[in-house]
């Protein structure tokens, strides 16, 4: 008997931490109880993208989307929908501003403007089942390449697609491959970069977790084009689920003869070896990564010669990001023309940013999660149409693109298209796809401090400007947030930034000042408020704010109720019932509790 329903249950890392596996068990148990196990199958999938509302399932064939499921919900859902065919409204998604739930996944605005290439199989297959990957045109791009194309034609196709590296730099992939192709050597290597050190980012992890074979197929095509026999994947240790699924995929691909010796009977050999990284941000940088694989300390190297000419063990080495690899099978299968028709193109029909990009959208938007969008889409569309706008009716303040050393962009730039070159022009970058949205409650000086703190502590220490310069910048920013900054500090920040950008060896140092430079450019008034008036307009830098009770409101409206006094952990509030209350600034440590508990809005922050 064939299945009439497939319950696609997300088992990405986000949903797993929200209890996806116990939920899976509960579903299976309940389905068995109703003797539906011959008709209804539960399929574990990778991240569906809408992590904000997980754990979630999508019921196929009708694409009914259920969210925030708890184990207690399972019996009712199984009986009502899976048995009796009545979709259950109360588990569906309801957009924040409306009352009517949206049953069908593709009608939900979060999914509406997305376009899936790298994530084309997300939520549709069990990542641990190679047959399901094969069913969705899996390994078809590879067989097309080895049966109908020469290595040179493969490289030309990738070049013509306009694909640029998704790991941060945006270097044209086909060009990189061509360099390695033209370099004579007895041995060449491929490295898959799955280090993904950006805090909060999970694009690459999700691709490996939801569709590991797409990466393996991409690499098979690259290996065929470049005559490579040995591939390394560099995965960070903190990604146990990605590792497990990748190992499983390697096992299955080897069993099917898609890896190993004499692949598909065509005489090609390929091995993929997993290398686990210890989680240093700098080890995502290609030269440091190669050093790390070779067993040395992960330090960036000067790139007078590209790894594509002389990389691992001194041999030509192609290193590409996970998402870059996942795009390759589709480019070969559907053609460069198709890929290049998506996204933006430069004036002469070349350059630009083609295809799609995966972003992890986090911060103050309603719909946080993983999104894949066509290049050229505006930031506004991502934040408002897909992200559903800013939470809690707050005002948008900035969006940071490009990870920890990306720039913060203001409201006036929201109509900027997502494009490698456009983002660079305004002081930010594409990076590997982190996207952090802030609202009026975020202090931009403090945000800059936070990200500088991250890159500062991740500097490999080789270059003095990067190691010491970022430290000095951090000192200054800390001073400013403590209310001890001067106007001269702002000048110094700019000078140091310039120096670090110019004299750092690798892009870690080269981009580290971006958050400071962009916030100083687009949110200058906040810096000035901190140094001139010793005020934090967003009320987040504690040394610069004071809590005060408006005596009149306290007595007239609140009748000196004393709730604040009873709740203050510092006993900093004095007063009697029906009388005015006061905060002793010497005792107050600015926790904000009184402000939250006063029902009469008698307390204000300044």
């Amino acid at each position, binding site marked *: *008997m*064939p*299945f*009439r*329903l*497939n319950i*696609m249950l997300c088992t990405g890392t986000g949903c797993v931490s929200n209890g996806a596996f116990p939920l899976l068990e509960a579903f299976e148990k309940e389905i068995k109880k109703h*003797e539906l196990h*011959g*008709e209804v199958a539960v399929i574990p999938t990778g991240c569906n993208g809408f992590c904000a509302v997980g754990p979630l399932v999508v019921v*196929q*064939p*009708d*694409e009914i989307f259920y969210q925030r499921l708890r184990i207690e919900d399972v019996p009712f859902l199984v009986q009502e929908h899976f*048995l*009796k*065919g*009545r979709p259950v409204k109360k588990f569906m998604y309801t957009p924040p501003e409306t009352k009517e739930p949206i049953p069908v996944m593709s009608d939900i605005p979060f999914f509406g403007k997305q376009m899936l290439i790298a994530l084309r199989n997300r939520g*549709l*297959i069990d990542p641990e089942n190679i*047959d*399901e990957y*094969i*069913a*969705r*045109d*899996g*390994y*078809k791009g590879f*067989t097309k390449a080895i*049966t109908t194309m020469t290595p040179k034609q493969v490289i030309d196709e990738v070049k013509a697609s306009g694909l640029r590296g998704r790991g941060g730099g945006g270097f044209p992939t086909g060009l990189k491959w061509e360099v390695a192709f033209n370099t004579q050597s007895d041995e060449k290597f491929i490295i898959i970069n799955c280090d993904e050190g950006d805090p909060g980012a999970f694009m690459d992890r999700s691709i490996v977790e939801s569709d590991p074979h797409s990466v393996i197929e991409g690499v098979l095509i690259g290996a065929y084009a470049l005559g490579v026999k040995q591939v390394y994947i560099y995965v960070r240790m903190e990604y146990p689920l990605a590792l497990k699924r990748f190992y499983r995929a390697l096992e299955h691909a080897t*069993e*099917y*003869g*898609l890896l*190993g010796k*004499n692949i*598909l*009977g*065509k005489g090609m050999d390929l091995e993929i070896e997993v290398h686990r990284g210890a989680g240093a941000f700098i080890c995502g940088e290609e030269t440091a990564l190669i050093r790390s694989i070779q067993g040395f300390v992960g330090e960036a190297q000067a790139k007078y010669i590209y790894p594509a000419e002389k990389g691992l063990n001194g041999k030509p080495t192609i290193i590409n990001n996970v998402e870059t690899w996942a795009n390759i099978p589709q480019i070969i299968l559907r053609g460069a023309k198709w890929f290049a028709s998506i996204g933006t193109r430069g004036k002469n029909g070349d350059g630009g940013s083609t295809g799609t990009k995966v972003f992890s959208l986090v911060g103050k938007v309603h719909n946080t999660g993983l999104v894949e969008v066509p290049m050229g889409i505006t930031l506004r569309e991502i934040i408002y149409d897909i992200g559903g706008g800013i939470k809690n009716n707050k005002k948008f303040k900035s969006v940071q693109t490009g990870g920890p050393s990306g720039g913060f962009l203001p409201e006036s730039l929201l109509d900027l298209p997502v494009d490698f070159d456009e983002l660079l022009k305004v002081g930010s970058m594409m990076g590997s796809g982190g996207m952090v949205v802030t609202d009026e409650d975020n202090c931009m000086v403090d945000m800059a401090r936070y990200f500088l703190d991250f890159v500062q502590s991740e500097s490999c220490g080789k270059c003095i400007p990067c190691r010491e310069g970022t430290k000095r910048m951090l000192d200054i920013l800390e001073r400013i947030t403590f209310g001890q900054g001067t106007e001269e500090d702002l000048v110094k920040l700019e000078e140091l930034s310039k120096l670090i950008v110019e004299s750092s060896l690798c892009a870690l140092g080269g981009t580290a000042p971006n958050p400071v430079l962009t916030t100083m450019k687009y949110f200058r008034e906040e810096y000035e408020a901190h140094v001139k008036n010793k005020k934090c307009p967003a009320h987040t830098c504690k040394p610069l704010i004071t809590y005060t009770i408006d005596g009149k409101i306290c007595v007239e409206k609140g009748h000196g109720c004393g709730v604040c006094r009873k709740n203050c952990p510092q006993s900093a509030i004095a007063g009697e019932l029906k009388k005015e209350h006061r905060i002793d600034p010497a005792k107050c440590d600015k926790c904000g509790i009184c402000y939250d508990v006063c029902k009469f809005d008698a307390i204000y922050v300044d």
Partner: protein
Amino acid sequence: MAKLTIEELDKLREKAVDKLRLRESGENRGRVIVHLGTCGIAAGGRQVLTALLDEVEKQGIKDITVTTAGCAGLCSREPMATIELFGQTPVKYADLTAEKIKKILAEHVVKGKLIKEYALAVGSERVG
């Protein structure tokens, strides 16, 4: 599993595609809805559904969705099913058995011929 050749990989893909058909939003001619309210189940609706699913597989029918729905509102005539072929008026069949649903599948769904004796209503109009 032995190592595959390209031809074997293609064959394997063809088979695997069938298994995933439910999840694709491909072209579809319509759906057969078996009513599984409490009364439908009590009257033997589950057996009708099982027989239907088996027959769909046996005949290799790929462009029809089999699904369930709640009570059709006429408990005395359960088990019931509705045939919804796109572009045509839905037809309700009543007093079903495993044998009857197989015949409905072969005649109505595959060949497009209504079986009057089993039909309860075409659209909202009663047949007999």
